[in-house]
């Protein structure tokens, strides 16, 4: 390294110096806990996920079918008007291929990448839907505009959470798996 030929003055600190308490610091582990009230919109949304269905809310002024549902329209600034079930299929709006976990730790060599995607859900207004994960798909095969379908947990395992959907898979997953030639870039 070019820089190594320059001798720096002072005392170098290593992370082990901190770990061994050679550098004086003050540490504190906070113990905070919250239970947020779901309220009407989130409450019904999660209830319906437990039922294996996706529900949206309609504003009669701007005619948007909003997903996730909300009890007020943030643009018209009025209460929304009715519930509407939407499909559990949709179109990938955008996606990423994550080689690290949520805490920035690197995924092992045998672990497949995580595939977060924003899915515009069929039946909701364009541009609205669910941020979830893709599965049963080769990362190289994912494209914006790809049709996908929710893969649900078994009904007895659902708890009323966004994770009641395991992931979204390509509508023709079986076909694409059998596809002989994988497209390479």
């Amino acid at each position, binding site marked *: 390294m070019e820089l190594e030929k320059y001798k720096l003055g002072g005392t170098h600190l290593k992370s082990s110096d901190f770990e061994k308490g050679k550098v004086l610091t*003050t540490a*504190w582990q*906070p*113990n*905070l*806990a*919250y*239970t*947020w*009230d*779901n*309220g*009407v*919109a*989130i409450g019904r949304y999660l209830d319906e996920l437990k039922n294996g269905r996706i529900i949206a809310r309609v504003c009669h002024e701007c005619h948007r079918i909003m997903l996730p549902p*909300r*009890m*007020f329209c*943030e*643009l018209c*600034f*009025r*209460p929304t008007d009715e519930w509407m079930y939407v499909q559990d299929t949709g179109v990938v709006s955008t996606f990423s291929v994550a080689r690290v976990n949520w805490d920035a730790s690197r995924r092992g060599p045998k672990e497949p990448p995580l595939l977060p995607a924003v899915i515009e859900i069929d039946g909701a207004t364009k541009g609205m839907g669910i941020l979830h994960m893709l599965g049963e798909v080769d990362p190289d095969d994912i494209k914006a505009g790809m049709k996908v379908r929710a893969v649900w947990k078994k009904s007895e395992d659902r708890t009323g959470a966004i994770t009641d959907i395991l992931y979204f898979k390509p509508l023709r997953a079986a076909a694409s798996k059998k596809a002989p030639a994988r497209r390479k870039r």
Partner: protein
Amino acid sequence: MIKRVAIVGIGTTGFRPITPDVSYRELIFEAARKAYTDAGIEPSEIGGFITAAEDFLEGYSICDEYCPDQIGAVLKPTQTIPGDFIQALATGYMMIMTGAFKTVAIEAHSKASNVKNIDELMGFAFDPVYNRPLRETPHAIAGLEMTRYMFETCTSAEQCARVVVKNKGNAMRNPYAAFGADIAEKDVLNSDPISLPLHRLDIAPHADGAVVAVLADGETALALSETPIWIEGLGWCTDTPTLEMRDWGEAAYARLAAEMAYKMAGIANPAGMIDFAEINDEYSFKELQHMEALKLCRPGEAGHLLESGATSYAGDIPINVSGGALGVGHLFEASGAHKILELVEQLRGEAGARQIPDVNIGLAQVWRGVPTATGAVAILSNM
């Protein structure tokens, strides 16, 4: 012409110990929709938005990002002040004074019921080197202040208890209040000892709720409202956080914030000019200590003024006719919002069963609670 700023609309959900039926977004939307309807303005026409909120209370990092939807501020100039509503009010006032904004909406809310270990959260505000390792209850800070305040001013525990009796009684006339009660001084003095001389009933319990207010410059205010409520004075200040060096008897932060607000409003004789006041009573003795800091009476006189009935609903200078934090509930960053709400309703003559007759100038004062030494003051008038 001297430029003025007025409150032209206000809306609230009222205040309840718990609000399990609505999310914080749904709670805030109700207050915002009422405020904009009250002001006769749609949020699309409002220039800027301010929320008074604090990440640890919300349980979200960067909670400002979660503010726009429920106040109608999507893709509009929006910011969050991690302080009391009255500090946000001061920011809104300054935004309008720049001339860049004709209208600004200000929001504050409490979902205190959603924080499962509030004492731990309050304790997390303590200095981690000097104070936190001692593991004292946050209320001990108030107990220490109360002891010194009582010692310096010869105020009695009975007088402090009487604040609770008055304010919980006032709250029974206030449909927004969560903790109205008909109690006696002995009930306060016999309630659970917390950090003596503080008892359980000396401490304001927490409540949930939201308030939104709309500010406008003078010209816009007169076009929008038949009863604009003018902001005459604002002040705020913070004492050293070092508990070891603080003045424990006097609320210097309140005295200096008030001096700043009185100077701006041109008020030389507060006790003669202020018709009524909503002041911080998060702990019973705080109402008395703050009255003295605000120069509504001299040091040591607040307890006697209270006993004379002068600060009661029908007295010469009603203090906390809404019920204060003891009667309405402690609302964290929305504490000032509730006080401004009360001032606006009183000054408009819309306060119903608790309306004080012939009021023109009201004062609202907040303190950000233990272990802080931050205070803010607002003076409003209907003239």
